[in-house]
């Protein structure tokens, strides 16, 4: 592309520090760990000593967590990078080289790369928990050589919470979104770069605490944390609540940045009609978090208060557990759209460039994304139709079914884009197509849970387990890996190995369906959720599911190896390997510290999906007026 060549000269000067990696750059990480652990144990021990209690009790663990979290954040570079200056101290130097990957800082690109690393690690350990669950379910009895029912309950709780809040909530929004939002909108950084930097540093201690919850007694409620079971099945619920609240805070900090950047910081000429569809998807997801997080956040803390402070919001003879369900699902139903909408938007971002067609019915697609996020606020009650009064059933059944209309617009747009195009199917596009097929099953089986009569039987059975794995694993995770492959050249300047990419795509698709499709049948046959022990008549189908699950799980090592190997030794990529018209591909790859140099800025002069032969470039680079 001509633009790239024109920019190359000037861009070379914005590379930032050229220093190579040195072990001393890990200092903030070591310091954060040291301050975090010291803070945790010191505060928990002092609290325990004052109360005449022990450090694994709920209140000492809560105080320990809060102090430990602050210690970790200060150690990570927050102190000299932000706080010290607020107290009149010296300003921290800005790190522009490799060291910025290992400390707190305002650079959205290194934050996004750290998100990918965190998500991969969290996915790996939460995936191991899934494997442990399937080992337990190999036989119908209690499988006591493997783990007890108590440990089984802790395991699926950790698996669920980590997969949702440490993986699905940030895989596409975090790793892909925070990298691409500034580049796609033609700006140098997000609107609140330090808040975005802070958001990543909240994740590791929260995830670590949740994984470590069995050490203080674990929690057996699953990822729901429903009272009053939460208050009487182990102190680990403290780490569940605090971990979930911390992860949610990180999501909200990111959401503020996405919405703010899109509203206030678009490049010249980028009207809302020209904002890339992926940014629209992120915006729709961000509004959900901003509007709905507070109710659920409060619910979690009230749940914790019942545990440690002796309040009785949800427990005791006057407690009202149904209120917790209302608060919990007010965000955590739409939360699934926070996972899914960015994935939809990725499909619609990749397909036009791959099929060399403009995005079909773009305005309907945007209406779909925003429509889902608006309707999503009104239908969380379908998660507990079995608990509510009949008056609420028809209302929330109708709302829930209505959400399939805007969701359908995504498919309308995708099919219209493919139709009559010339689709180049590389590994990323193949994964997108598979994600669309999986989500179709996930979406259509959701209608059964929206329909009250069918849901009264299917609720809390393996039907539901299959349904949400189709949407989250089958669609969101497939799309995440597709997005990592598609934008890999942007981040690393290299390409992934296409053969192994396609190989594992088929591997996933086959074993994913072998694992989760039989769960629909198990659900209809009367297998309920969250059981370590089931009746022998369900043995055969569970055996098949478990073996498929092991093969599916093992398959995830292929993309891991592919990404790591290609990062070091992959084939060098040209600046715009997919021939995309997106603005992010008009900048240098890998993206320099400052994506485009001072004195220039992009101006949008046309739609970014015009692939007609001989069509004009959608962007021109102009010299920015001096302030």
């Amino acid at each position: 592309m001509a633009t790239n060549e024109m920019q190359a000269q000037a861009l070379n000067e914005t590379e930032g520090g050229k220093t190579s990696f040195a072990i001393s750059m890990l200092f903030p990480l070591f310091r954060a760990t040291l301050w975090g652990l010291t803070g945790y144990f010191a505060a928990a021990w002092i609290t325990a000593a004052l109360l005449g209690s022990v450090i694994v009790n709920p209140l000492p663990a809560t105080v320990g967590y809060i102090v430990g979290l602050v210690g970790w954040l200060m150690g990570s570079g927050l102190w000299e990078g932000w706080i010290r200056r607020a107290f009149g101290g010296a300003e921290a130097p800005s790190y522009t080289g490799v060291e910025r990957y290992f400390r707190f800082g305002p650079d959205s690109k290194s934050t996004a790369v750290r998100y990918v690393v965190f998500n991969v690690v969290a996915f790996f350990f939460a995936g191991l928990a899934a494997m442990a669950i399937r080992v337990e379910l190999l036989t119908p009895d209690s499988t006591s050589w493997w783990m007890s029912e108590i440990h089984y309950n802790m395991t699926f709780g950790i698996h669920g919470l980590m997969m949702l809040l440490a993986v699905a909530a940030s895989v596409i929004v975090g790793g892909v979104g925070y990298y691409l939002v500034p580049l796609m909108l033609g700006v140098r950084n997000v609107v609140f770069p330090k808040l975005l930097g802070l958001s990543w540093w909240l994740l590791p201690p929260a995830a670590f605490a949740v994984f470590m919850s069995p050490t203080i007694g674990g929690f057996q409620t699953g990822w729901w944390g429903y009272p009053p079971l939460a208050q009487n099945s182990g102190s680990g619920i403290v780490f569940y609540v605090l971990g979930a609240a911390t992860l949610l805070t990180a999501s909200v900090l990111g959401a503020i940045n996405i919405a703010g950047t899109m509203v206030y910081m678009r490049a010249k000429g980028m009207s809302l009609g020209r904002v890339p569809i992926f940014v629209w998807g992120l915006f729709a997801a961000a509004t959900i978090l901003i509007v709905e997080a507070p109710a659920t956040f409060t619910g979690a803390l009230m749940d914790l208060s019942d545990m440690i402070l002796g309040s009785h919001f949800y427990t005791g003879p006057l407690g009202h557990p149904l209120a917790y369900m209302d608060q919990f699902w007010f965000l955590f139903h739409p939360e699934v759209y926070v996972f899914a909408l960015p994935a939809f938007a990725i499909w619609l971002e990749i397909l036009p460039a791959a099929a060399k067609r403009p995005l079909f019915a773009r305005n309907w697609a945007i209406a779909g994304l925003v429509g889902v996020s608006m309707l999503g606020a009104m239908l969380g009650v379908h998660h507990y139709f079995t608990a509510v009064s009949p008056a609420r059933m028809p209302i929330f059944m109708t709302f829930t079914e209505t959400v399939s209309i805007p969701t359908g617009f995504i498919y309308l747009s995708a099919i219209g884009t493919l139709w009559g195009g010339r689709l180049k199917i590389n590994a990323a596009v193949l994964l997108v197509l598979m994600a669309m097929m999986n989500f179709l099953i996930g979406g259509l089986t959701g209608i059964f849970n929206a329909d009250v009569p069918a849901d009264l039987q299917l609720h809390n059975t393996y039907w539901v387990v299959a349904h949400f794995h189709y949407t989250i694993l089958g669609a969101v995770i497939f799309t995440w890996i597709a997005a990592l492959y598609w934008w890999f050249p942007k981040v690393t300047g290299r390409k992934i190995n296409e053969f192994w990419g396609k190989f594992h795509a088929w591997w996933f698709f086959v074993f994913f369906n072998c694992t989760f499709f039989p769960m629909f049948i198990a659900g209809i046959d009367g297998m309920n959720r969250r059981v370590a022990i089931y009746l022998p008549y369900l043995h055969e189908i569970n055996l098949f599911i478990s073996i498929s699950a092991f093969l599916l799980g093992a398959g995830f090592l292929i993309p891991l190896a592919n990404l790591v190997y290609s990062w070091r030794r992959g084939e060098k990529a040209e600046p715009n390997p997919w021939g995309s018209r997106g603005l992010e591909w008009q900048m240098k790859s890998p993206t320099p510290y400052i994506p485009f140099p001072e004195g220039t800025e992009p101006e949008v002069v046309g739609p970014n999906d015009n692939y007609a032969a001989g069509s004009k470039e959608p962007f021109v680079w102009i010299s920015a007026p001096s302030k």
Partner: protein
Amino acid sequence: MNAAKENLWKAFRGLVLVWIVGLAIGETLIAWGVNNWPLVGSVQARITADATTYLMWQAVALYVLVGGAIVYSAIRFRASSASDAVIPENQKRTWAPFVVTWLVLAIGINLANTIYPGMVGLEQLWAIQMDTKNPLVIDVTAQQWKWTFSYPKQGVTDVSQLVVPEGRTIDFVLRTKDVMHDFWVPAWGVKKDVIPNEVRHLFVTPTALGSTATNPMIRVQCSMICGNGHPLMRAPVKVVTAAKFKTWVASNSF
């Protein structure tokens, strides 16, 4: 960079063929699945199973129509190679007949589904509850991790096995002593959460004779995570004839 011309109507005829074949295969599989449906053991289960099977016919049809279009267009409209630089001639940004058809169908199917099986099923379930003049009242007490049943009008208290007559509507009065539970007999096709500090009712009219020993779908199963003993929080069920139920009551009441 020369543009490739496609006859899109000819392509559409191919898609119609894919749809016909796909629908035939898909609906045949569903017919087979519905034929092998597990035990439907109550009037309520008939209603919920009807809703489920109806939605299945529909889901398979929609899967073939939408999924078929995706797979077909991905294969039919693929580039010849990775280095293919041909630009397709079709650069339309929208095409009203397709968009309008999609909108009408999406809204229409949604409205239809809300009415049937949604509201129709609910009205039927509610009607049974409203019309039952003299239900058999059974008090159900859930606690970690067992079920106890009492028959207040029959004078049977605190039994751990649920024995019910066939063909009579039962009003299960659900209470819990500790945490949330969920009363579910898979064969009866409905479930209800048991919530602390609240009393809930579930109306069931069993129609299939049998017991947990003859069909494991006929069992009480806690369906809401309630701690260590959750998977084993089950109770045996026996559905007997009205005469046999009378005998059972006589030998178990005070």
